């Protein structure tokens, strides 16, 4: 029994992960949505993955807090719904919730607790790991990349700076075939896959 639960949780985890990575199609996609609808664990995972993704992309920007606020609002609503159910103790006005009735509430609190733990962990990690933007700024700060004007021209005729899409196409072709460099394998391929020539 315990094992089956663990398996289910593991499966929900996998599905949420795959869905967040955008790698599910067709039937798998439908299955993942169903799992997401029915499993709080999957929902929590889904949220965490998105939060991590948002943090990775945007830093601790507005997108993250908006997303988070939405999640908290949903969570509150669900908690409210759970608490709003008629409970014998509540009707008696005892104010003490017995273990059987508060089971689901406790579960939600656990989910909430885990979620906030995940948020704290993610934010903590975000503080520890500089965001791409911060690093971009750091990179552009101390070691500015010089616009290329400094290379000595041996030719007497002054160079004409040209930019046309045909040329860009050939430069791309060069980069695709230009893997004949020893630096290409560790770094060059990644560089070319990352760098997009600025559009005009």
């Amino acid at each position, binding site marked *: 029994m315990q094992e089956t639960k663990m398996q289910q949780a593991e499966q929900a985890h996998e599905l949420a992960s795959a869905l967040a*990575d955008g*790698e599910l*199609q*067709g039937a798998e996609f439908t299955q993942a949505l169903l799992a997401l609808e029915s499993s709080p664990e999957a929902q929590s995972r889904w949220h965490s993955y998105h939060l991590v993704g948002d943090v*990775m992309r945007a830093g601790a920007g507005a997108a993250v807090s908006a997303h988070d606020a939405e999640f908290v609002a949903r969570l509150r609503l669900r908690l409210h719904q759970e608490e709003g159910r008629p409970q014998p103790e509540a009707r008696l006005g005892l104010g003490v919730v017995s273990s059987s009735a508060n089971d689901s509430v406790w579960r939600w609190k656990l989910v909430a607790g885990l979620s906030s733990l995940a948020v704290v962990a993610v934010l903590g990690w975000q503080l520890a*790991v*500089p*965001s*791409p933007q*911060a*690093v*971009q700024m750091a*990179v552009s700060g101390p*070691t*500015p*990349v*010089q*616009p*290329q004007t*400094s*290379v*000595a*021209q*041996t*030719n007497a005729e002054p*160079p*004409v*700076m*040209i*930019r*046309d899409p*045909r*040329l860009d*196409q*050939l*430069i791309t*072709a*060069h980069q*695709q*075939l*230009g*893997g*004949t*460099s*020893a*630096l*290409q*394998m*560790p*770094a060059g*391929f*990644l*560089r070319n*896959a*990352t*760098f*997009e*020539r*600025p*559009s005009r």
Partner: protein
Amino acid sequence: MPRMPTLSWPRLILLAALLSGLVLPAVADQGATGAASQVVARERSISEWLLRMHEASRRRAYIGTLVVSSGGSMASARVWHVCDGEQQMERVESLTGTPRSTFRRNDEVVTFSPLSRVAVAEKREALGLFPHLLKTVDAAIEQHYGASPQGSERVAGFEADIVQLTPRDSLRFGYRIWSEKRTGLVVKLQTLDDQGRVLEQVAFSELQLDAPVSMDKLNRMMGNTEGYKVESPALVKTTPAAEGWRLAQEVPGFRAMSCYRRPTASGVDALQWAFSDGLASVSVFIEVYDPRHHGQEGLQALGATHALVRRVMAGGTSWWLTLVGEVPAQTLQAFSQGLERTR
């Protein structure tokens, strides 16, 4: 794994006490190893550096954020890398500019453009060349570049050895490479001009070494072209001799690596003849001149990449030459001047 002998409690306590005493000698030992590795770092040849960097990418799995700054522009991507000794896989998701996902399995590359719903599938033979390339051109690399260690620095949270590759002539650029101390992985790379100014920089801003990356998952994602129009560039292998061209005057250090015919936007095939000195590469594109498509001659430079466009007369025909490479403009001039029509 050796079987642990069973230990009695008093022995365990004794062992624990011994272990706590062992911590200090262990740290001292690490210091000694560090000093030894620095000696090794000083003595490594260029080929050894490059091989170590290549081995690192062949053996390690990692996830990281790569930032490229070139010619005043900046781009970044999220990178997943995994290998099982035989196969190498990579996923590169652009975080800036047009959304783009690039997948690589050894020399197979698929680039997904979600906005245009086009996936370009290609085989990049050159990617499979390494490290064989080192065995054939290492003499050329050693001949044209010198390597000098420049101490160490922290990049993306990792201690890295810095090595500078300085060109011995003005036909190529220099490089400064940050190689993670423990694994050798390239974590930062700068291309430098003759004044030592940074033309281009590629660096991890964040890196998770030995990260859990699933090769199966990447394989599935790479193969999932559902909803995409799959295109493959029609490259035809040829030889310069068959096309009627030769390089009468060789450019020192550069060897011909490959020659293809590839279709261009104008509808006429272009010849692409690629050269490399082991670190930098140059492509020479040759097309028949067409005034409707070919406009202005000149030079373009963006970061370390230079392009030279020239109209030349040869064998009674007007040709349109485009030379592209991560080399100084004068190297491209040398190529354009050395080119000769054989018929």
